[in-house]
């Protein structure tokens, strides 16, 4: 089988889920005959028909609210929000209903739904098309927030998300959509949520990250390695519920931690990781924790986007700084 990129892997997982489970429906703006603006739903309309691949009116709050109703009534809706910049109207439903229906009814009703959205920068898109606000959603108990960082993890995690009996927001780093094609087996095997992936082992410094910054971290690790610094890379992957143990184990080994995210610094999810280390990993630290993030401002339009986004250069710098402590 040919190598596929992340959009194709998402497509493959959707097709598999639709095939396996008749209660799965896909909905969103332009997901039908157009196949989604990123083509993540390409071909599904022809294959599964208009009763399962549903073009909605232009209304994000509705997409989320309808998903709640569908899910409570026995379907497994997988909806697409066209860009994370348009996800805000869904927060009301995610916070007030999707994440609470099981708890509110003591398990009588539940909400097995997935909201997918491309997020993050790096493709020179217009305003509101490059944000990374995953931390806002990761603060909602009852909701899962999952972010893949490669085609195969997109495939396996999306299957896990769709099969999970509770709501999942699945954020796809659009910078990786067409990068790094790889072989992905359509084996229907889900990957675990609620924990991350140790993608590279190393003894000197832990790079803790997710989404498109995994790629930058690998680039940084390569550079660092030429300087004799071996980085461990952890793809956090599920932000909520966050698995502190995995990060703490790595930091215990390396004694140094750089947290990297595309989101702006203040209140980004990196802060949760930093605080976790300050609480439970302090004694392992050989150096302060560092965060490499976007600055606390609005994502600039395309001309300055690259200045705004963190990159391998900053990660290398941060890790090198930490090595100065011993």
């Amino acid at each position, binding site marked *: 089988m040919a190598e596929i990129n992340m959009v194709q892997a998402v497509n493959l997982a959707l097709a598999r889920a639709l095939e396996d489970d008749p209660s799965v429906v896909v909905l969103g703006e332009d997901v039908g005959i157009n196949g989604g603006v990123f083509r993540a739903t390409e071909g599904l309309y022809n294959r599964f028909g208009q009763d399962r691949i549903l073009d909605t009116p232009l209304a994000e709050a509705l997409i*989320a609210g309808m998903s709640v109703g*569908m899910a409570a009534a026995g379907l497994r809706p997988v909806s697409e929000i066209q860009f994370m910049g348009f996800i805000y109207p869904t927060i009301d439903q995610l916070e007030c209903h999707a994440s609470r229906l099981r708890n*509110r009814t003591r398990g009588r009703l539940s909400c097995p739904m997935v909201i997918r959205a491309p997020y993050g920068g790096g493709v020179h898109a217009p305003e509101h098309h490059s944000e990374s606000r995953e931390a806002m959603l990761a603060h909602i108990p009852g909701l899962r927030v999952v972010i893949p960082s490669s085609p195969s993890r997109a495939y396996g995690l999306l299957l896990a998300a769709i099969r999970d009996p509770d709501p999942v927001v699945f954020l796809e780093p659009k910078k990786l959509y067409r990068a790094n094609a790889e072989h992905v087996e359509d084996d229907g095997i889900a990957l675990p949520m609620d924990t991350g992936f140790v993608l590279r082992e190393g003894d000197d410094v832990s790079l803790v990250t997710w989404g498109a910054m995994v790629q930058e971290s690998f680039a940084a690790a390569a550079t660092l390695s030429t300087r004799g610094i071996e980085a461990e890379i952890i793809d956090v992957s599920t932000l909520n519920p966050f698995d502190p143990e995995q990060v703490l184990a790595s930091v215990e080994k390396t004694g140094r931690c750089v947290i990297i995210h595309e989101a702006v610094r203040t209140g980004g999810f990196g802060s949760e990781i930093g605080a976790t280390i300050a609480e439970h990993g302090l004694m392992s630290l050989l150096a302060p924790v560092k965060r490499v993030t976007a600055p606390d401002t609005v994502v600039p339009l395309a001309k300055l986007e690259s200045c705004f986004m963190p990159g391998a250069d900053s990660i290398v710098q941060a890790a090198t700084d930490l090595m100065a402590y011993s």
Partner: protein
Amino acid sequence: MVSREPELEIPFHRFIDEVGQVVQKLPGFATDPQNLVPLYRAMMLTRVFDERAVGLQRTGRLGTYASSLGQEAVGVGVAAAMRDQDVLLPSFREQGAMLWRGVSMKELLLYWGGDERGSDFTKARSDFPICIPVGTQFSHAAGVAFALKQQGVDAAAVAVAGDGATSKGDFYEAMNITGAWRLPVVFVINNNQWAISVSRTKQTAARSLAQKSVAAGILGLQVDGNDVVAVKQTVSEALERARHSCVATVVEAVTYRLTDHTTADDASRYRSDEEVSKHWQYEPVRRLRQFMENNHAWSSADEEALQKQVASEVETAIQAYLDSDAPAAGSMFDYLYKNPPKSLANQRDHIVTRAADDG
């Protein structure tokens, strides 16, 4: 140059007027007035339950509570029009409908008393729980309706919300998709003329709330919300249309909130006693009783017996509520996720221990 709203006629349905007179040929189910006794009984139960619940709140044994005094015909009429497999999505003032659907008084009290177990209905298990964020249940109804249609179930979703809820974008977005996708939904607007202190006329310049349906290309009509026969009949017809032709309807039930918004409110701050007194003339319970009496289907003795029976039922439920054990501290974690993460177990332990230490 156009300078007025387009003309448009919104039907208004009423069968029994304020003094219990029939103003239009009665629908089949109402031709034998004996058939109305269950409706009357349910309205009376709702009224007594509301009264006692307010009393419990006033004496510190219940949380904030929203009475439906004066609006009993809406909830009861709507629920009586539904079939079991239809799905109700109520607001926080639909105890009349919920009780008819089989939710128990004890469950309602548990809920308002601050215990989630009150929403784990023993009956009506597919109905939605009480919805607090105004208007957010409309789009759930569209989703439920889609699922019912997809699954080939011959049923519809019924969302009930207030006049204030018609100002939320959710209402419009949900109406719109029921039109575009032809979904079996009945939107019941329980128009009690007030959204806390904001009157119906300040809420919108639309002459009726039913006409908001025009925005979505679905049907809209008004019904006298104090005439339970009209409510039941109108909602029945809307449900038929929904189930058989997938045509959605907005049913605006015109009624009046005879008491405070909730026990936390003081309506005398913003509306006059005269206004309220006037509306007591139209209230639904006395109206139906009048009609039944006029038609020799009800007597003072019947009334007395009913009052007694209802009072004792309510009392029993209250006692069961007051006697119920406190929820366990750990329960706040047990239904968050079906598959909880490990980290939550630690937090659970901590809370449970702390609660135990507190006694």
